[in-house]
């Protein structure tokens, strides 16, 4: 087994062996369930497609919060407890360490997200929604989660403790969420560039409606790659400081 998979397995076990992972999953499912009943289903008759759109709308919020909470510990916790030195003195590259930790958090987040599946399936039983809409919505959630976990991985790699990591990743994500507002008060071509940075407005809404655009895929994958690259370089730089 390569060092990457060894570390990936340990990271996944860390989520499953501590209460934190279960508490985060429980909170996400509770909030999703409450919002699904009160907000998405609402009162009176609604179109199934609208219910699903609203489900993916509020699930994006819980996914972002879960991504921040899951990723803040990746490096910062090990730095606090002193175990990071085990990885830094083992024959594994910074890139592999970053990738293994990111992948573990994303897999666990994906697992939590999959647990929300009964909610849209319930709509499918009683209403009419397309599998394509469902798949596009979950793909959007997964890509959004991937980008947020990558941002969290980077924040954890540069922060001294978990609290600072959470604050840094929240700040970056809030900036990206609010980018569309900034785009309104700037002049082109800068406004176009900033508008395209918007984490939710420009790129997530099509997924909510069951639409799949390659530009949105490229955006989330690029964001993920960019922050994982930053995390790798900042880990490498720490050997010099």
């Amino acid at each position: 087994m390569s060092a990457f998979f060894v570390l990936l397995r340990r990271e996944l076990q860390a989520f499953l062996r501590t209460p934190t992972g279960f508490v985060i999953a429980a909170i996400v499912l509770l909030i999703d369930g409450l919002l699904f009943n009160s907000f998405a289903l609402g009162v009176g008759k609604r179109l199934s497609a609208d219910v699903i759109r609203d489900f993916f709308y509020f699930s994006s919020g819980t996914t972002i919060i879960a991504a921040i909470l899951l990723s803040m510990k990746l490096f910062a916790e090990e730095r606090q407890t002193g175990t990071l030195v085990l990885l830094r003195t083992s024959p594994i590259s910074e890139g592999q360490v970053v990738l293994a930790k990111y992948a573990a958090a994303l897999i666990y987040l994906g697992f939590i997200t999959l647990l929300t599946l009964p909610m849209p399936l319930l709509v499918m039983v009683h209403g009419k929604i397309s599998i394509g809409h469902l798949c596009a919505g979950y793909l959007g959630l997964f890509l959004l989660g991937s980008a947020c976990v990558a941002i969290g991985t980077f924040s954890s790699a540069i922060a001294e403790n978990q609290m600072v990591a959470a604050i840094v990743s929240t700040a970056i994500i809030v900036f990206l969420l609010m980018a569309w507002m900034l785009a309104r008060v700037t002049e082109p071509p800068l406004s176009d560039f900033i508008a395209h940075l918007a984490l939710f407005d420009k790129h997530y809404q099509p997924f909510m409606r069951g639409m799949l655009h390659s530009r949105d895929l490229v955006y989330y994958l690029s964001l993920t790659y960019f922050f994982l690259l930053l995390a790798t370089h900042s880990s490498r730089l720490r050997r010099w400081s």
Partner: protein
Amino acid sequence: MIRVDGLVKYYGSHRAVSNLNFSVEANQVVGLLGLNGAGKTTILRILAGDLEASAGSIYVGDQAINKDPIAHRKQVGFLPERVPLYPQMTVREYLEFLGRLRGVTAAELGARVLSCCERVGIRDHLDTQLGALSHGYGKRLGIASTLVHNPKLIILDEPISGLDPKQIIGMRALVQDLSRDHTVILSSHILREISRTCDQILVIREGEIAAAGTEDELSKRFTSGQRLRLTLRGEESLVRDFLSSRPELSSFEILEVEGETLTAELESEDDIAEELVVEIVKAGFGLRALQSPSDALEATFMELTAGPDENHDEEAEL
């Protein structure tokens, strides 16, 4: 086996290690001795591949470690002062995880874990959770973790700190045992913790080597003459007269007077213990004890390892 050429390390503008040069032969035990903040941990972390040097080179064999850091880390087992443990894991899981991470094959992993635990004496604790291990067993597990991938070089940062006297004796024996198959570099800020363990001691002061050699060599080089602690029964004025009349004593100091029993510290150029005993008995004093003060060499090393500022501070306090 290891050659360090002109090693320099800066933290920002602070120079932690200055132009360090030394070499270590295979299967030697080398101790870095110095006060806290002298640069020992920085040197060890660079040797372990945890930190990058600002300048200089380290060669293991003919290979510079920065040419292929991953290959270098395969050859090194590093134990920091604070043993890094995952509290949710058991001893077996911890060692298996580190073994796999460091490239031990599945076929040999089980046997390696067992032999490491056997060697450090924690075989009975294989299924103990790490959170429940005592400090002493934690240190032993730390040593086992450095052995699991059978590296050529073992680096131990303050392996004896926090251990009780019995554990210190056990740890010394363990370190000696390790040198049969591995090269060992360790650090300490207290000489007696590593004395009789190291083949070579490097005294580190402000990131530089202040002195190097075996314990005996350093002792001969830096302690002039002999210091003795004398405890005898007799009247103080008579004892003072007796000691003042001894030409072979370069100095003496009465440390303690308790009734008729006195303790004095003596200094001489030569070994005068035997003739002094004869003279004391002849003079009619009751000899209770004559010994070398155990802290004499330690005190010399303390002076050697303390920087000029620290000496100055101590003088100011006095």
